[in-house]
């Protein structure tokens, strides 16, 4: 039996339980007690006061240096000049560490993706990668190689979905173009900088193996090159190799937000979405 199926079957607290009225009432009482309890008074943070003072000092210095406006002193540079040490890139991506809260982060991020092609009609995906990286980095830092890798992952997903849409509407020319792009995708510099030799099976702990950073794409690309649409749908339905296509699709994110509460991101929800939102 599939491990996920067994986990679901043996869920100690499955959906549909905990519905007794007594539990609801007891929970209501706990909630009321919490909001009726006093919250601690907000304390003035010394760090905040200090940073305000620093900004004022910086503004004065900038003005003294030649009429630079105060607003420009608030500029946060995206580039840090710090690089991920060699040998530490796996899992976090190589390259210069960029500040995702940098004033010009969006512009630099878009420029970094310039050599990574997306199919026509997927223009919003570049911004989605940026938004995801910003929300994923609590310390506001991301290696440029990881950012470019994020673009490459999203782009590979986009080309695969574009091929699927082209095949479903019988657009052989576009499908052929998609196959050609995907055939070279694992040689894109954004891919090889992070994962020089994508593989389905690299050694892990305790004698196990797992796909390398872009290893997940190998069976999907092979399926597209083989023209096997039913197999692609099976891979998508099973979310094989944790490809998580839906995470790259901003339109799906907007769609799922409009669904009733219990609908969550899942391969099935994504396929349902695809069935009603054909592209092309």
């Amino acid at each position, binding site marked *: 039996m599939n491990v996920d199926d067994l986990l679901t079957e043996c869920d100690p607290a499955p959906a549909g339980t905990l519905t007794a009225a007594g539990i609801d009432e007891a929970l209501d009482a*706990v909630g009321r007690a919490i909001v009726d309890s006093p919250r601690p008074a907000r304390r003035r943070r010394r760090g905040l006061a200090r940073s305000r003072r620093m900004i004022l000092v910086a503004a004065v210095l900038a003005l003294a240096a030649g009429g630079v406006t105060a607003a420009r002193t608030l500029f946060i540079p995206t580039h840090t000049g710090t690089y991920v040490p060699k040998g530490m890139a796996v899992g976090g991506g190589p390259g210069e560490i960029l500040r995702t809260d940098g004033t010009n982060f969006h512009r630099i991020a878009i420029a970094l993706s310039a050599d990574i092609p997306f199919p026509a009609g997927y223009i919003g995906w570049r911004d989605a990668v940026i938004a995801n990286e910003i929300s994923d980095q609590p310390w506001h830092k991301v290696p440029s190689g990881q950012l470019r890798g994020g673009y490459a992952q999203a782009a590979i997903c986009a080309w695969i979905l574009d091929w699927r849409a082209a095949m479903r509407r019988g657009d052989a020319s576009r499908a052929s173009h998609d196959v050609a792009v995907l055939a070279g995708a694992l040689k894109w510099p954004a891919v090889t900088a992070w994962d020089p030799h994508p593989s389905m099976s690299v050694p892990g702990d305790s004698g196990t193996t797992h796909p390398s950073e872009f290893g997940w794409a190998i069976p999907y690309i092979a399926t597209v090159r083989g023209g096997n649409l039913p197999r692609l749908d099976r891979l998508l339905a099973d979310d094989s190799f944790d490809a998580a296509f*839906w995470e790259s699709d901003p339109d799906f994110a907007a769609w799922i937000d409009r669904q009733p509460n219990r609908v969550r991101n899942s391969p099935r929800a994504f396929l349902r979405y695809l069935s009603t939102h054909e592209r092309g």
Partner: protein
Amino acid sequence: MRSPRATDPDPRDAFAELFRSTRSDLLRYLLRRTTDAEEAADLLAETYATAWRKLEAIPAGDQARLWLFGVARNLLLRSARRQRVADALVDRLAGELRAAGPPAPSDDRALRLRTALAELTERDREILTLSAWEGLAPREIAKVMRTSPNAVRIRLHRARKQLGSRLSATPAADLAAPRDADPAWRTRAPVIDS
């Protein structure tokens, strides 16, 4: 779901809405990872009490639910070292949960699964169960566990394989109740400040 803000005229309404919309998910999360209803009820109250104290830190939208999972996870990791504070309301909730009956399946396969899960590292176990039980996507798990989605994907794949091989290696006669016997079920990972 709108997240409460300390600057709201009355943050209690928004907090109550957050509580209503997330409490079942959080209660299930805790019941799946604790040994008894008292502990789950106590940790649930502690999770939301922490959220009430830290309104400024609660992110907006559905991220609030993931943030609460993160708080609950940290409290779980600490709970082995803290003493439970008796509280009448928590006891009442625990009583209702007990009266509803323990939902945990206890057949051979469930015991075998618990044994195999207990042999994984805390992080691998948490990633697997957040995916299978809470239905979180790798990106969401990454937020709960404060790591990158790519790291989650790789670990998830590896953890599935490890669990599969442990399940096939666990003889039926060698079953134990690991959550009761092995306190490391909850305490192997380092504590992270919430």
